[in-house]
């Protein structure tokens, strides 16, 4: 069982090491591309769109509750 526990610790120590190497490598060689400017702030919605949204919501609601 000492061997068993030792194996677990050694395995995870290797994983700590490998993860460290991986993270540094990825950060240097493969940085994430510029994050896209997520969801832009919701702009005021025109009346027609409002109606459309609401009717979609109604429709959705009905199809759910039927």
């Amino acid at each position, binding site marked *: 069982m000492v061997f068993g526990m030792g194996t677990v610790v050694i395995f995870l*120590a290797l994983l700590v090491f490998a993860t460290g190497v991986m*993270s540094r490598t*990825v950060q240097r060689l493969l*940085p994430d591309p510029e994050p896209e400017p997520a969801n832009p702030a919701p702009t005021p919605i025109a009346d027609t769109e409002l109606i459309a949204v609401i009717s979609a919501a109604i429709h959705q609601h009905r199809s759910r509750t039927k």
Partner: protein
Amino acid sequence: MENLLQLWSSSGLSQMTPGAAAMIAVGFGLLFLAVRKGFEPLLLVPIGFGGILANIPGAGLAYSAVENAILQGDAQLLMQLSAVLGLDPDAPVKALMEAAESAPAQVRSAAAAMAADAGFGNGMLYSFYSVAIATGVAPLLIFMGVGAMTDFGPLLANPRTLFLGAAAQFGIFATVLGAVSLSAFGIMDFSLADAAAIGIIGGADGPTAIYVSSVLAPDLLGPIAVAAYSYMALVPMIQPPIMRALTTEAERKIEMVQLRHVSQREKIVFPLVLLVLVALLLPDAAPLLGMFCFGNLMKECGVVDRLTDTAQNALINITTIFLGLSVGSKLVADKFLDINTLGILALGIVAFGIGTASGILMAKAMNRMGGTPLNPLIGSAGVSAVPMAARVSNKLGLEANPHNFLLMHAMGPNVAGVIGSAVAAGVMISLVGG
């Protein structure tokens, strides 16, 4: 009149045994804990219900066709089965039942053919068990789904927390030694394989415990699974006293620095790094950790979202239903109501306690060795029991210091604990089962 007698003799009341009644009560107890107390209901509702079904007298839902033939067949069929199984014509039912499980494969298939010809079939829960657990597939699919729901971000931001996940597995190995000692002193009767399967309860990871136990000790799967999920549900009660006893007020107040941002690409590469290490060092952990990494890669790579969605929902839910009912099939009275079950329950909670303590002590030891200080409260999260153990760490941290949000920091050791116990499972299977 004959019909009435037939109906009565096939009714449950006429065949009820005290053991079956007790196990039905146990099943209701599990349902009560799951529904009223919120103990891991996703698993304990199906397990409890399966346990009740398994013990319905005369229904034989948890038995194979051969076992049903032994229990319900007429004298002539029993003699024929005894002959096929290589026993005396007047062998007791208990001996036949054991032979039906342990005979060589070809003998078992001859007996199965005989039972089928006599009109007996596999019970529903037995079929579920054969497909879902005996093949190992259900725990593996659950692991894939868990992988698809796991965020390794906190772990990648602070990989040192993997050591906490490693330390908490000490509970597993200490428990194995305990189980072996109990057997050496003649108090219990566990083989080394049994002991290894029982130890995994300390991993605080249900599917891992079920997987290991299906490989090493199928007979003990019922109590092991029940213990694993019950204690996982009890984490908020088991851990805090140990955590308070082993830490000082000052240690609990330690605030941890905010975690760095982890890039998407690191998250994509990590499961592959883990997979390579498993492949190189511990092939026996490959099924569990392979499916876990597969699920996680599907989630992080972002190009197979419809598969990820299915792995996280429909597939894991279907698997959970069958896994739970199948575990229930191992709650039949003659397998569960045994002094060994008490031993398993006792050893399981010891394993939890030792794992919790080891995680905390490891955190304190790492603080002594220098580096950015860790709040030792996150050490207890290394047992896994995701995300309950991390929440417990967070709660105790807030008690000591209202500005101390440990949740994300504790998620690192928490998911490390999942990896750790899967590694420990591989080691066990390799050493004991190989």
